[in-house]
């Protein structure tokens, strides 16, 4: 047998197993239809769930606006849903939600972005492999555990020694920032001067600016140390805890964004003679900017939607603090109000009190919907930009 006939024989023996019989082919097609159908159902179920949630919340929220109108709900701060002549002014509650979310951003964003930069560009790979999962464990702690901690540990601590803690915190946060700002400012201000005068002027500027900031920090620290916090369940407490809760989201997503920037850009920057700091500030961060913004938005959503912690530790006082940025006063948030008032709200008769909670839920839902869409849009835009 020559090679040609041998291969033909082989083909004759093997081909039939590659070609399917009619029965098998039909079976396969039916299986495909069922398989695809099943997957489609599963996928559309989750999509339908979103639509259903929207529909049912809107259905129960709209009667409130028909009953009570828009004005009181959005402009009054008098929230007495159980009074004989009920008042549904939710402005203070919106403000409370806004305040604790702002606080959470102030805690989570600088910490989170700094941690992400450290993880992706500064720390050695081996350290990163350990640290990132540990940060992500923060996301796995149940919120009621955070709430318990806030109520039982943090609140009494703030009451007993809140002033000194804040005084120290000002130094911990302020000193490195001030040092950095002083150096950069002095550098920028003296950049244009002729060579000989520059170094002297720079030192003079650094010294005077440094003395000024140290004085400022001392004054601020002393003022804060003298503070007495009468109630530890306040916006500050909740902001810190919410910030920590949002941290893993911010770190994880911004670190991914920094990684996505890619080796080429960094190497290109180094090749042009840029230092590591210049590469980070001028090449990597701008390229990852939209990804980091998306991370911040996701963190905000985590903070604004959190219920258990705020219900346990925000104090739930229906007021706008005086002045509005006073984090040391108790506030009430939308989520806590919904959770706390739901039991009493009479769903059978469909009272205004019941629908008011749904109106709040609708506002929350719309807000996170907008946040989600914009973060989605930002991420997509970023991908297009980086992908070229």
């Amino acid at each position, binding site marked *: 047998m020559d090679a040609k006939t041998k291969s033909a024989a082989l083909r004759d023996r093997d081909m039939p197993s590659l070609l399917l019989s009619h029965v098998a082919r039909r079976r396969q097609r039916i299986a495909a239809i069922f398989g695809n159908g099943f997957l489609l159902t599963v996928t559309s179920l989750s999509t339908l769930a979103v639509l259903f949630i929207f529909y049912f919340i809107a259905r129960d929220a709209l009667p409130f606006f028909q009953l009570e109108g828009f004005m009181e709900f959005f402009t009054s701060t008098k929230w007495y849903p159980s009074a*004989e002549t009920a008042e549904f002014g939710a402005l*203070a509650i919106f403000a409370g939600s806004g305040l604790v979310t702002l606080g959470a951003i102030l805690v989570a964003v600088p910490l989170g972005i700094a941690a992400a930069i450290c993880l992706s560009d500064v720390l050695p790979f081996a350290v990163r492999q350990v640290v990132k999962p540990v940060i992500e464990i923060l996301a796995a702690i149940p919120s009621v555990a955070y709430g318990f901690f806030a*109520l039982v540990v943090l609140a009494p601590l703030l009451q007993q020694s809140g002033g000194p803690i804040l005084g120290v915190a000002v130094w911990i946060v302020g000193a490195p920032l001030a040092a950095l700002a002083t150096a950069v400012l002095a550098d920028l201000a003296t950049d244009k001067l002729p060579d000989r005068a520059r170094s002297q002027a720079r030192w003079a500027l650094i010294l005077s600016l440094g003395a000024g900031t140290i004085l400022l920090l001392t004054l601020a620290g002393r003022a804060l140390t003298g503070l007495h916090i009468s*109630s530890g369940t306040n916006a500050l407490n909740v902001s810190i805890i919410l910030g920590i809760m949002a941290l893993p989201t911010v770190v994880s997503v911004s670190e991914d964004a920094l990684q996505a920037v890619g080796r080429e850009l960094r190497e290109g920057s180094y090749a042009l003679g840029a230092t590591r700091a210049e590469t980070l500030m001028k090449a990597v961060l701008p390229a990852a900017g939209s990804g980091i913004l998306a991370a911040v938005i996701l963190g905000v959503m985590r903070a604004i939607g959190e219920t258990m912690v705020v*219900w346990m530790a925000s104090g739930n*006082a229906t007021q706008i603090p005086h002045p509005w940025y006073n984090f040391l006063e108790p506030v009430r948030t939308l989520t806590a109000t919904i959770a706390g008032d*739901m039991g009493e709200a009479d769903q059978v008769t469909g009272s205004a009190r019941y629908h008011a909670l749904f109106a709040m839920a609708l506002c929350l839902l719309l807000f996170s919907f907008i946040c989600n869409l914009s973060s989605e849009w930002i991420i997509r835009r970023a991908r297009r930009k980086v992908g070229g």
Partner: protein
Amino acid sequence: MKKTTKALTGLVAIAMAASIVQAGDANKIVVDGSTTVGPIAKAFAEYYMGKHPEVNITVSESGSGNGAKSLINAACDVATMSRPMKNSEKKAAQDAGVLVIEQIVAMDGIAVVVHPSNPLANLTIEQIRDIYSGKIKNWKDLGGPNLPIVGISRDTNSGTYESFETLVLKGAKIAGNVEYVGSNGAIRQRVLSTPAAVGYVGLAFIEGVKALKVNGIEVTPETVTSKKYPVARPLYMYTNGRPKQATPLCDFINLSATPEGKKIIEDTGFVPVK
């Protein structure tokens, strides 16, 4: 989606019709009314159904007034109320052929509590009202230390809040800076850890904190039962006619007189009737 809603509504309607049909059943007890008495009724129902699995007790909390209405309309077997039935309601019941029988199941006494370090011993009802409505803002106005008062209230959901509103606030509105917490235990915890706090809790929750005298009268089970203590009131269960002996309904109503029932009442934060 419309179809689904219709189908669901249909199902619910059928279920409701079925439950109405069953209302005549001796093994089915429907309880409706006050949110204050609700926890007692629910705990009773749980306890009783645990012992008699064949009996089915449903407890709803739609408010005292609605409880009275349901009893008159024969939509429930027991109306729980945190106030006595009004004459107008009794008249309506009479017209509907319903003979209302009143039973006091428990006393509701609310202790006003402060941190153990607070030197104050006594407050009047008016002073408590002024604290909660924001007129008195500092303990020094009441002869205490110079500390801003941290007022703590139960959430508006709770029966304790409702009682406090009726017995102390009497129409005054709670100030914006008053904090709200979700349980008697949480108030106790907050007051224990906050020197400037004032709160109000059921009698079962005053351990460790300092219960103030109100109008000069100490809060004890005795002063609550004798109605000397001003922030106290009886809680009622109303039935249509005296329940027949040895029926589940009779047992359920009389649980409050048994040692187990008294234990349940104490656990829910109320004072059993002697």
